């Protein structure tokens, strides 16, 4: 089985978000970048397939040279090779078009992407990729098993879960549950050394037009001060929630 894991290079979850250039660009100054958490759950599941069922795992990112550190981390925790499509990831459709080319030319059976990235939160790349390729697609996937060309995928639904039977080739929009938090791997020295020997292929983008553009960013208005209520006066809390906030 040939697995492709799509990796977004996103600000660490603890990052403070600021903008620059007249609020038109994300300010990367002082920001630590990581593998998008939803992608990391998928990558870790892919490594399980590699170790338990004999699969190859390629990671891919559409982005600039700064994303290579994130791809190297994916190699350090066990991916076999990496691909970077050398283009700014301007919108979800543009990224999906680039990934579709990589999937077609590489002949991957299973493509795993996070269901959304923690920066732009578009939640569209895996679905669009499946749509462009005409592959089957399971979103919000919390469990995945593959047996030959058949797969069983569990997806989260509002208030429960659903088990789906699917065939490869397949695109997965993954999230926590594919593996547990404790299964996530931290690169060790040997892994980091080995990652230096692994191939990181640079591809030029295919021509594709972005259909959307983020033109401006804004931070939420600062919060008005909290109203503190004494623990001995919970009637006041009920009163405020009813008469002032009007939520009960």
């Amino acid at each position: 089985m040939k697995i492709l894991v799509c990796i977004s290079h996103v600000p660490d979850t603890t990052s403070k978000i600021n903008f620059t250039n007249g609020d038109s660009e994300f300010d990367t100054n002082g920001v630590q970048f990581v593998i998008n958490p939803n992608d990391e759950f998928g990558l870790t599941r892919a490594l399980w397939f590699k170790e338990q069922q004999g699969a190859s795992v390629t990671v891919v990112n559409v982005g600039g040279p700064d994303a290579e550190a994130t791809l190297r981390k994916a190699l350090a925790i066990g991916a076999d090779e990496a691909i970077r499509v050398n283009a700014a990831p301007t919108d979800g459709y543009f990224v999906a078009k680039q990934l579709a080319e990589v999937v077609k030319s590489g002949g991957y059976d299973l493509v795993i992407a996070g269901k959304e990235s923690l920066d732009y939160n578009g939640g569209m790349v895996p679905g669009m990729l499946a749509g462009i390729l005409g592959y089957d697609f399971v979103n919000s996937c919390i469990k995945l098993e593959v047996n030959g060309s058949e797969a069983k995928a569990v997806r989260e639904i509002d208030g429960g879960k659903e088990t789906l039977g699917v065939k490869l080739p397949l695109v997965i929009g993954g999230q926590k549950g594919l593996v547990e938090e404790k299964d996530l791997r931290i690169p060790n020295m040997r892994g980091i050394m080995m990652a230096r020997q692994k191939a990181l292929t640079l591809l030029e983008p295919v021509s594709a037009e972005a259909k959307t553009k983020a033109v401006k960013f804004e931070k939420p208005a600062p919060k008005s001060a909290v109203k503190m209520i004494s623990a001995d006066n919970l009637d006041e809390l009920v009163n405020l929630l009813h008469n002032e906030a009007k939520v009960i």
Partner: protein
Amino acid sequence: MSILIYAESVEGKFKKTAFELASYGKKIAAETGTTVTALTINATDVAPLGQYGVDKVLNVKSDKLSSFNAKAIADTIKQAAVKEGAKIVLFTSTTDSLYIAPLVAVALEAGYASNVVALPESLSPFRVKRNAFSNKAFSFTEINTDTKVLAIGKNSFGLIESAAAATIEDFSPSLNDNDFTVRVESSEKGSGKVTIADAEVVVSGGRGLKGPENWYLLEDLAGALGAATACSKPVSDLGWRPHSEHVGQTGKPVASNLYIAVGISGAIQHIAGINSSKVKVVINADADAPFFKVADYGVVGDAFEILPKLTEKIKAFKAQNS
């Protein structure tokens, strides 16, 4: 040309989000001098959609679509959009709608924006305000294609009633075997419990509750409020509560009217996930907990004393006001 909304139903019934979506569509339709068409699949009673501005319902009745199938539903919506000449196709932000929307966008060669939180800021160029950076910022996004697909965030637009009856038309999409390659083998749903996705009120607990055996305190309060229960990331990592209850940046987002956090200190990732909630109440023993900085109402004290008292007071209030 019309605006098409996908009015999702669950076991034949619409949820409030479908009516919010109709209200949102009607508002754009009124500004652009067009009408709203709703696509429904196996809904039992479509008439209520008219009360929220839907002019026409395309009503699909199909046994084949009785279990969820993203590809087949996306194909159905595409065919409805083509039939109606819809240039704007609207979705809610339920798990199912977010699954389908990107497939529809590709099929219609449309630009797609999710997490939209307000009416379009401008129609030409078409610009919407959306949540980004896990609710730590808003992004103003322009869509430059002729057809646009939007997913509207829960609770970001109210209900607007407009008294008119919708015309109802049966619609039979032409679906082929290729639409049904994904099979639903089993489905599990917690019965009777309010889900985080639907809840108007969410009551959430953190490590301050000291152990899973104390969760009944939170469940009692949730019961009195008709609320869903949720938890912080450490609580789910410790296995005290299932992952499906974890709210925050890497868990579920919460956009309820009221969010009550008990014994949660308020890590930046947690706050990002619940920031779209309208009113936040924080109950914590530590007066310096960072969560108080983003709360509307705060109570400093022992959760084990406060929770039972608050539950009683809410019950008394509900008894008086119902």
